[in-house]
């Protein structure tokens, strides 16, 4: 083996990558007989050791925290809106389904009610204020007559309009909801409540308009 051949394989020799035993023996024999190649062998060995040490010194190094923060921030920015959007869509769908069911119920009820009415005259009007209703009934005998002859007026006779709510006409679509509530709750709707009876439970029928707001309340004794 000459020096050029030795130089070709010196790095493989020191890293135990030279699998040919015969070639390895010849290379070591040459290094024993050549001072220059022996020095080169030593340097190559030192380099191999140093690179291994340098690699081992940082083998557990990881990217700094700021990299993870930036990468995961971007990941969340991209994926979270789609996640939230899906949730919102689900809730919107559920709300729409509920509304459709409620509307269907109301529609069926109103159809049933209209079939039930026979020769229904002009709709009676629920007065916003019972006091005003009394006054108007005395002041307007024609309306009083109309109320007296109306079946709807009987149906709605006991209902008292909710203060601050929109006017309600008996021809307007609505549904009656049977509820149990405290007198205090009635007070919140604007009715007068006797002191000390706020916690008392009462049964009531609430006339609910198509928009979901209460129009009138009838207390069931």
């Amino acid at each position, binding site marked *: 083996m000459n020096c050029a051949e030795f*130089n*070709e394989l010196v*790095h493989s020799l020191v*890293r135990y990558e030279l699998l040919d035993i015969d070639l390895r023996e010849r290379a070591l024999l040459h290094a024993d007989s050549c001072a220059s190649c022996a*020095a*080169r062998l*030593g*340097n*190559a*060995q*030192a*380099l*191999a*050791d*140093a*690179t*291994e*040490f*340098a*690699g*081992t*010194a*940082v*083998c*557990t*190094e*990881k*990217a*700094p925290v*700021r*990299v*993870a923060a*930036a*990468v*995961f921030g*971007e*990941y*969340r920015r*991209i*994926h979270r809106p*789609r*996640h939230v959007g899906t949730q919102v869509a689900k809730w919107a769908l559920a709300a729409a389904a509920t509304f459709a069911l409620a509307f269907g119920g109301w529609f069926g009820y109103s159809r049933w009610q209209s079939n039930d009415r026979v020769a229904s005259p002009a709709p009676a009007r629920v007065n916003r204020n019972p006091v005003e209703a009394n006054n108007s009934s005395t002041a307007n005998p024609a309306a009083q007559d109309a109320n007296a002859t109306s079946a709807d007026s009987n149906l709605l006779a006991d209902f008292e309009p909710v203060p601050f709510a929109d006017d309600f006409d008996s021809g307007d679509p609505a549904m009656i909801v049977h509820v149990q509530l405290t007198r205090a709750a009635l007070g919140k709707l604007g009715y007068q409540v006797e002191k000390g009876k706020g916690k008392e439970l009462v049964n009531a029928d609430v006339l609910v308009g198509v928009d979901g707001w209460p129009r009138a309340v009838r207390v069931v004794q």
Partner: protein
Amino acid sequence: MGQNPEIAGPLELKDAELLRRAAEGDESAFAEFYNRHNGPIYRFALHMTGSPDSAADVTQETFMLLVREPGVFDPRRGEALPFLYGVARNFVRQMLSRDSRFVALPQAMPVVAPTNGQCSHLAYDDASSALDAWESLSQQESIWRLRQAILSLPTHYREVVTLCDLEGKTYSDAAGILDCPVGTVRSRLNRARDLLLEKLRPATEPRDSLRATGTGS
């Protein structure tokens, strides 16, 4: 050599599966993938650029690409780690090309403070400790000089030294990452090691410091 702590165990999910889940919004899958691979990519960039800040930037851009365009990785074309190395390699080359317009200031060897918080001459109270400290300092100096020599290599030589000698990849792994034949890796590595010996010659020949400072053998 041969250190590869990020090998997936038999019970761990494969990278492709993790990336598929991550693309569907499973953050824990992405976190596992990131934890598994950020180390090798960061170290590769660190060895290639010599700057922790640049290495962090390269690592960040590499994973950002996967976050923004999950479809860029095709598991049918190979494993995820070589793909990440390939992306990081491109970013490193872009960065080196961009920074080549600037002249780097000569770097001083970083001084490592004693771990017990005392001054170095107070930290070692007997002769053997002082000798250990001196050996440690010499080792640090040797490693620092070696790193400077690696950084001065042309990029294609630096890549093979980083992958094979510092990161312990096999020749075939390095060939897969660098997208070239194994023979090319072998010849580049041989040439790179010769260049390193030449660059380190002033220090190695007169006093054979790499051997004398206890860097092995």
